[in-house]
């Protein structure tokens, strides 16, 4: 365990990005103009990459909770982050630039997509975040203290019923997200990530990046769309507004070992996965959920289409309906 007893929270007044948030001009309760919203989004997307910070955050998902220590250092062109779980079995994550190394309790084989490395709290947004304005509008809600720092609160309100409400607590001086929550359709808390202790900016020793466990480098998969759908008779109509296809790969699944086509869509904030595989007639069809994750399986011609994501049940059904079987 590294020594953090002498750690003090500090929010230096001068940071590279130390401009006032654009939304400071809007009164609490107002919906941000597109221009202000875009400026806020870009700031939120850049801050976790440009600002040095360290702290401990809590991730609460369904009825599980986990504390993670995170250190991120940006010094000119040098950028590295280290994460270490504080609960349960020890896990560790180290990223320098694009190279990710992991320590996992088991010999879990895992590979990462180049585009999606380090989309971990507090880095919630993609590098080009403006796409999410197609699905959400942003409302400024007021101020609140998080981990000892003043934050500005923003609601990302879905423009349709296909998404959940997201709320972000932003440190105005740096643009760093200090707390992020996702709420269900009854406004129940579904997912919460929050710093309980954080230092933003200031001197952070590179010694804190030193791994505590033997780490293994993680292979980074090529990203993008490779190959097509498994069958020309499978027809895909327009997916819901705001969602873009980020990735399409063929991968063997653990259960039957046969290749499954996996498509990943994102609206900038949440993602939806579509799995297409030959239908064996045994798999149960219909809806299932695990907390904020909804899943829907549907037979399309000789194929099984399974859709899942951190979206309402309606969305996975709409997505599944987009896939049609064209008879010759």
């Amino acid at each position, binding site marked *: *365990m590294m020594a953090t007893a002498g750690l003090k929270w500090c929010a230096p007044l001068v940071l590279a990005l130390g401009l006032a948030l654009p939304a400071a001009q809007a009164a609490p309760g107002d919906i941000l103009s597109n221009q202000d919203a875009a400026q806020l989004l870009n700031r939120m997307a850049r801050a976790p990459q440009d600002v040095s910070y360290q702290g401990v955050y809590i991730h609460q998902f369904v009825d599980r909770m986990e504390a993670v220590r995170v250190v991120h250092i940006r010094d000119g062109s040098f950028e590295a982050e280290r994460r270490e779980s504080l*609960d349960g079995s020890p896990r560790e994550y180290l990223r320098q630039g694009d190279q990710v190394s992991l320590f996992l309790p088991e010999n879990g084989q895992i590979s990462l997509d180049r585009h999606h490395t380090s989309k971990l709290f507090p880095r919630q947004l993609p590098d080009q975040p403006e796409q999410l304005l197609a699905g959400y509008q942003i409302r400024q809600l007021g101020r609140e203290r998080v981990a000892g720092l003043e934050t500005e609160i923003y609601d990302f309100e879905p423009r349709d019923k296909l998404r959940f409400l997201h709320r972000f607590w932003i440190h105005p001086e740096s643009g760093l997200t200090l707390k992020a929550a996702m709420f269900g359709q009854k406004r129940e808390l579904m997912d919460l990530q929050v710093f309980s202790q954080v230092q933003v900016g200031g001197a952070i020793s590179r010694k804190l990046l030193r791994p505590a466990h033997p780490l293994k480098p993680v292979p980074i998969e090529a990203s993008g769309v490779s190959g097509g759908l498994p069958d020309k008779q499978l027809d895909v109509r327009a997916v819901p507004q705001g969602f873009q296809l980020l990735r399409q790969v063929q991968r063997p699944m653990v259960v039957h070992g046969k290749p499954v086509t*996996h498509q990943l869509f994102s609206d900038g904030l949440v993602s939806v996965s579509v799995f297409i595989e030959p239908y064996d007639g045994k798999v*149960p069809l219909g809806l299932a959920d695990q907390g904020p994750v909804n899943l829907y399986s549907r037979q399309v011609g000789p194929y099984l289409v399974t859709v899942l994501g951190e979206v309402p049940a309606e969305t996975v059904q709409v997505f599944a309906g987009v896939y049609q079987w064209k008879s010759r």
Partner: protein
Amino acid sequence: MKEQLSALLDGELAGEDCDAVLRAIGNDPALQTDWQQWHLVGDALKKEHPILSPDFMSRFCERLAAEPIVIAPVVHRRKRDLIRRAIAPVSVAASVAFVSMVGWQAYRGASQQPVAQFAQTAAAAQADSARLRAYLAAHRADNGNVFASQDVMNVSYQDSPTR
């Protein structure tokens, strides 16, 4: 312990104190519940952005007067617990790595398709449970979210340690 939890919530703990409380929370479901509820209450107290219905605070105060803190999510959790109890033996059989797995919950009557019968036979349920976990793991891995949740860490869709 509650005082320390409160201090943690307010960001007043540092260093080893913080670690100790976090460990304690991790090991104690009751403290986890407190933590979650305190966050909800903290959010609800901010009048300018109520996440709960406007009359939440009045109802909450009534209940607080009547009994120890009980908020709506508890009901939800109980329901989930029942389902988990039904699923647990299957999960354990599938893999000891998933003891803390949250069960997949099938909706009833909300689907146009025949509703999933997840517990037809132990074998079918086990296969399906593995399939759903593999989907979830693939989904999360593609989001770079390998670190967030233990079940993902232990699932691999490339080789098959759970078979």
